[in-house]
């Protein structure tokens, strides 16, 4: 237990110290607010811009969640399809890799032309960014199934579906979850990027609008919210993983 407190206390102390140094430094050097706001200024912005920040946070969060949701479903389905047949693997895998080589910077303006300034293009960019780690990890996870175990099931007379349900899917889950943890963090970046390219709402949009007005504390407030959002979503995925795979604890211990 004391070990655990020490583990949490370390990083907390470090962050508090860094914030304190930042605060003192800004006041001593008399740095202008628009250039580098002190942590207290950012806190102040949270108070005065509360409603504005809340509104735009909600928009970004929606994009992240919907985009990640689409990526989750599409990524797992692609992974299963690729694993299920050689022909599909040969056809789909190059496309999957190619989809990653096209830079988002090129796609985002096209999405703007095709789908306008609403939620849809951001959701699509988010989904595209989050899709790849999920699809690849699903394929790797399914392929990591113990071949001997598959033989055992076959000797019992298992159907293909039983082998998938009893051996392949559970074997793949740990890797799917690590893919999901990466993807959910990518999702936040994807959504903000989509908003930078062209939007009417969202934290990316708010930052893009606040910076030219020298509302620097508000920009920092947005950054803090995005960081918290990314970390929280990561933790939620990790928590779901712990609940869904209780056996993992014992495996890593031994």
């Amino acid at each position, binding site marked *: 237990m004391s070990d655990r407190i020490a583990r949490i206390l370390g990083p907390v102390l470090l962050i508090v110290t860094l914030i304190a140094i930042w605060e003192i430094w800004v006041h001593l050097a008399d740095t202008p607010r628009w250039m580098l706001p002190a942590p207290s200024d950012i806190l102040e912005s949270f108070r005065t811009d509360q409603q504005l920040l809340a509104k735009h946070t909600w928009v970004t969060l929606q994009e992240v969640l919907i985009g990640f949701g689409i990526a989750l479903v599409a990524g797992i389905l692609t992974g299963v399809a690729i694993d299920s047949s050689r022909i599909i693997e040969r056809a789909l895998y190059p496309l999957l890799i190619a989809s990653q080589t096209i830079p988002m910077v090129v796609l985002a303006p096209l999405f703007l032309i095709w789908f306008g300034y609403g939620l849809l293009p951001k959701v699509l960019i988010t989904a595209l960014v989050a899709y790849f780690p999920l699809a690849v990890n699903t394929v790797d996870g399914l392929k990591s199934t*113990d071949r*001997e*175990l598959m*033989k*055992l*099931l*076959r*000797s*019992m*007379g*298992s159907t293909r579906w*039983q082998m998938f349900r*009893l*051996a392949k899917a*559970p074997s793949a*889950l740990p890797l799917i979850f690590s893919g999901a943890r990466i993807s959910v963090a990518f999702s936040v970046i994807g959504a903000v990027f989509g908003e930078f390219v062209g939007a009417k709402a969202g934290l990316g949009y708010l930052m893009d609008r606040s910076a030219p007005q020298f509302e620097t504390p508000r920009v920092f407030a947005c950054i803090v919210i995005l960081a918290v959002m990314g970390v929280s979503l990561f933790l939620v995925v990790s928590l779901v993983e712990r609940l869904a*795979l209780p*056996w993992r604890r*014992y*495996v890593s*211990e*031994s």
Partner: protein
Amino acid sequence: MTPPVLDITDLSATYMEDGRQLLALQHVNIRVQPGEFVCLIGPSGSGKSTLLDIISGLFAETHGTLAIDGKVLTPSQRPGATSYMRQRDLLMPWRNALENAALALEVHGYSPAEARDRAAARFEEFGLAGFEQSYPAQLSGGMRQRVAFLRTVLADRDLLMLDEPFGALDALNRAALQQWLVRMWEHQKQGVVMVTHDVDEAVFLADRVIVLSARPGTVVHEEIINLSRPRTRAMVTAPTFLAHRAVLLDALGLLEEVGV
């Protein structure tokens, strides 16, 4: 008269290695009667595991016929006809002991709840009581092996195939589990084909020991073991035991090498 649980006639099998066809088994004839315990021994590469793979339908022979419970089965009809325990315990790390033991029953169509109930009823007898909810990673090697064996027995087939089930265990655990297996089986009386490369283990457990030659594997000797049941540890020093042992070592061509 009940037909033999296993009847293999003139079976040959080849497999491909580095683009070359290798003959793994040649003209193999084996018959196992209901409730008989047969051990297969032979040098490594004599096709013992290949033979079990063929019986369980994982691998197809190139020639010969194979009947289980008196019915000739093609390779695709064999999966599920026997119960096969492979060298590694192959417990699923995400299933607890109870769920692992119930696996074959689930595959054979029982609902997960019913399969677990049936498995739970045997835990005491297999020395696993109290470990129903434990994950494989929390169990000792010997216990894992017992869970794997329970899974094999629960499939409720007339023929059990065991591929070196004690191979991965240390000598003490091994002796304890042999003792335990022989006691279990003497109550159970299913037909058993067990692959081992340990002559003492074969003599101690089996009614009959079949010796396969080096590749291509073929039956070179059959030894009927004249030891009474129930078997006890004390028998391993009996003259009959030692005589069987000497004959089998000779059949394996090991007598000169070890200088007996």
